[in-house]
C-alpha cells in the first residue's frame, strides 16, 4: 500500500466505446487522493419531452421509440401504457400476450448484443467482436443466430424492432397469424441449445469478472403475476421502499448535474441502481425454473452486490425470456389469433406507463387535453437513474485498484461502465419543469 499512497492517476477516456451513446470517464487521483471522479455525458441533448408537446395520442409511441434504437420496443410499450392509463383504455388478453412476446424479443436481442458484442470481448482480451470472427467463429455464429431470432420475433409482432410500427394505444394495427406465432415458437425451440451454450460460455468466463462489491439500493418494477418486464403494478426497492406506479417520484428523485446532459437519480442513499441485476435482486423468485437453474450454474445469488454481475443477470434473463416466450406462444396458439381493432375514446387526463427495458425501469408520464394532445410530458430513462450509482462505484473501485497500472485502472473503469450496458442517447433528456407560455 505504501506505493499507492503517493500515487497519481489521470484517466481521461473520451467516448467510451462499446456503449450506446457518447460518454467520457474522468478520474483524477493526486498523491493517493481521489480528486475527481465523473462519467461525463456529452451526448447531444435531444429534448424529447419538449418534442411531445402538442403531438397527438397516436403519435406518442412513434416519436418516443426514436429515443433509442436498442430499447425501441420498451419505449413504445411505456408510451402506449401511459396513454392507455390516461384515457382509461383496456386492452385484450391477446394484446397483452403479443406485447409481452415483443418485450421478451427485445430483452433477448439487447442482452445478447451486450453480452456477446460489448462485454465478452473484454473477458476474451480483444477490442471488439471482429477478431472473434477468426478466433471464436462458433461464438459469433451463435450470437448472430440468437440476435436474429429476437429481431425476427419483434419483426413479426410489430413490423420492426427498430422501430415498432403496429404497436399502438389500444392494441395492434396488425395481428400476426397463427402460422407466424408457430414459426416464432419453432425458431425459439431451435435456439434452446444456443441459450444453454450461452450460459456455459458465461459460466466459464465469470471467474474473470472483477471481484468488486458495493451495496446500493436496487429498484425494480413488481408484478404479482410474473417477473416484471412488460408491466408491473408497483415499484419496489431492496431497501424496502415501495410506491404505486403513478407515485414513482417518491422513489425516483431527479436532479440536474453540470457535467452531464442526463440528470442524476437517487432515493434515500446517494444513488440507486436499475437493470437486470436490480430486477434479479428484487424479483428472482418469480424467474422461470430454467432461469433459476442457470443462475445457480452461473453462481448468481440474491442479493448480489457485484456490479459486474449485471452481465450474468442478463444471461439469466435471456434464459427466462426464451422460456416465457415459448409459454406465451402456446397460450396464443391455444386461444387462436383473433382480428381486433384498437378501440380508443380520446379523453383528457394524466397517465403513467412504467416498464422494465433491458437496462432497467423506464417511465413515461403524459398529460393529455380533451383533444388527445399532449400538454405535459416527463420521461425517466434507466441509464439516467444509474449515473449516480456508476460514479459511486468509481469512488469505491479506484482506491481498491490503485496499485495497478494506469492502463489496467482505465480498462477496469471502462468495463465497469460497460457492465451497466449504458444507453447514453436514451438518457439524454430531462426534467419535469413546467412549460411556460
Amino acid at each position: 500500500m505504501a506505493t499507492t499512497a503517493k500515487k497519481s492517476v489521470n484517466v481521461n477516456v473520451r467516448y467510451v466505446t462499446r456503449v450506446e451513446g457518447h460518454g467520457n470517464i474522468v478520474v483524477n487521483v493526486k498523491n493517493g487522493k481521489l480528486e475527481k471522479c465523473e462519467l461525463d455525458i456529452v451526448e447531444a441533448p435531444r429534448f424529447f419531452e419538449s418534442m411531445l408537446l402538442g403531438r397527438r395520442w397516436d403519435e406518442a409511441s412513434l416519436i418516443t421509440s426514436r429515443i433509442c434504437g436498442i430499447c425501441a420496443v420498451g419505449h413504445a410499450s411505456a408510451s402506449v401504457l401511459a396513454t392507455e392509463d390516461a384515457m382509461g383504455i383496456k386492452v385484450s388478453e391477446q394484446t397483452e400476450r403479443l406485447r409481452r412476446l415483443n418485450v421478451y424479443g427485445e430483452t433477448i436481442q439487447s442482452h445478447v448484443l451486450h453480452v456477446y458484442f460489448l462485454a465478452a470481448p473484454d473477458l476474451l482480451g480483444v477490442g471488439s467482436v471482429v477478431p472473434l470472427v477468426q478466433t471464436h467463429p462458433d461464438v459469433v455464429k451463435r450470437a448472430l443466430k440468437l440476435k436474429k431470432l429476437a429481431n425476427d420475433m419483434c419483426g413479426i409482432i410489430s413490423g420492426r424492432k427498430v422501430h415498432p410500427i403496429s404497436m399502438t394505444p389500444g392494441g395492434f394495427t396488425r395481428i400476426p397469424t397463427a402460422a407466424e406465432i408457430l414459426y416464432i415458437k419453432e425458431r425459439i425451440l431451435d435456439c434452446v441449445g444456443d441459450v444453454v451454450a450461452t450460459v456455459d460460455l458465461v459460466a466459464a468466463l465469470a471467474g474473470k469478472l472483477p471481484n468488486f462489491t458495493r451495496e446500493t439500493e436496487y429498484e425494480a418494477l413488481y408484478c404479482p403475476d410474473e417477473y416484471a418486464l412488460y408491466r408491473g403494478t408497483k415499484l419496489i426497492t431492496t431497501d424496502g421502499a415501495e410506491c404505486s406506479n403513478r407515485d414513482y417520484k417518491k422513489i425516483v428523485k431527479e436532479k440536474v448535474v453540470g457535467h452531464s446532459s442526463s440528470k442524476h437519480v437517487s432515493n434515500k442513499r446517494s444513488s440507486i441502481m436499475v437493470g437486470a441485476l436490480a430486477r434479479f435482486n428484487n424479483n428472482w423468485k418469480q424467474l422461470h425454473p430454467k432461469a433459476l437453474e442457470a443462475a445457480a450454474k452461473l453462481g448468481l445469488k440474491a442479493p448480489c452486490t457485484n456490479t459486474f454481475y449485471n452481465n450474468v443477470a442478463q444471461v439469466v434473463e435471456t434464459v427466462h425470456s426464451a422460456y416465457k416466450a415459448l409459454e406465451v406462444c402456446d397460450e396464443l396458439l391455444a386461444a387462436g389469433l383473433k382480428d381486433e381493432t384498437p378501440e380508443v375514446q380520446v379523453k383528457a387526463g394524466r397517465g403513467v406507463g412504467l416498464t422494465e427495458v433491458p437496462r432497467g425501469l423506464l417511465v413515461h408520464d403524459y398529460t393529455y387535453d380533451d383533444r388527445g394532445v399532449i400538454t405535459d410530458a416527463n420521461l425517466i430513462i434507466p441509464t439516467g437513474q444509474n449515473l449516480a450509482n456508476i460514479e459511486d462505484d468509481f469512488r469505491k473501485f479506484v482506491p481498491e485498484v490503485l496499485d495497478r497500472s494506469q492502463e489496467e485502472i482505465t480498462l477496469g473503469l471502462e468495463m465497469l461502465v460497460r457492465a451497466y450496458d449504458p444507453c447514453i442517447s436514451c438518457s439524454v433528456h430531462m426534467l419535469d419543469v413546467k412549460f411556460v407560455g
Partner: protein
Amino acid sequence: MSAKPKLAFFSFASCEGCQLQVINCEDELVALLGAVEIVNFREAIDERRDDYDIAFVEGSITRPEDEHEVKEIRERAKILVAFGACATIGGINAIKNFQPQEKVSQYVYGDQAATFPSYPARPVHDLVKVDLKLHGCPISKSEFLEACKCLLAGKQFTVPNYPVCVTCKLAENVCLYQKGMTCLGVVTRAGCDPMCPTFGNKCIGCRGLIDHPNVNAAFDVLEDLGLTLEEVTKDFTMFDGCHKEITEKK
C-alpha cells in the same frame, strides 16, 4: 481503393438505431466484415482510426461542436454517406424546430438550460457535401447492403423517386384512407417495402418527401380521395421539419 476499403461510422444527435441496423444484418455481417475494414464504430469496437475511405454519418447536427467534427469527417472521407432520416432530412429531431429553442431547453433542463446549448436540428448536407443519402428511420438493411455493394464496385447507387403508394399498391394493401386513417405515402419516397401500411399503420414520412412532389406525388390516390397536395404535406411535421417548404409554411 486497393486493399479492403475502410469504413467508419459516426453519430450525432440520433438514437443510434441506424448503426444498430448494420449489426442487425445478421446473415451478411460476417461477409461484410470480410470485404471491408471497419476502422471506427464507437458503438461496437474499440479501434479508432482516421484513415477511412467511406464515412457513414448518422444523426442531425444540433451543436456548434458537432459542426467542427462533421467538417473534419468530410475532409478525411473520400465518400460521405448521410445515414438515416436524422442525417438526411433532420428526422425526428426536427420536431423541436417548430418550437423556440429557449422554450425547448427550459422545458427539459429548467434553470440549467444554458449549460446544454443546442440549436434547431440540421441535416448533414446543410453543413458539408454529402455523396450519398440512405433514407429512413431507421435505414433499410437491404438498401444499406445494396449501397455497400455499389460503393465497393464503384457503381452508381440510386434511390427511388416515386411515392410509397406505388409499392403499397403492388403489395395489395387496402389503402388506409379507406379505413378512415391518414397516410403520407402519397408524397413520401418509396424504398421501404412499404413497411407501415403493410403493418396497418400510416406512413409517417420517415424517408422524406419525393423530389418535386408537385410532379411526382401519387395524384391518382389523391384524386380518389378528393385530397390536395397541400392537405397532405401539412402533416409532414414528424420527420421533415427541416424541409424549406414546410418550415416556411409554418
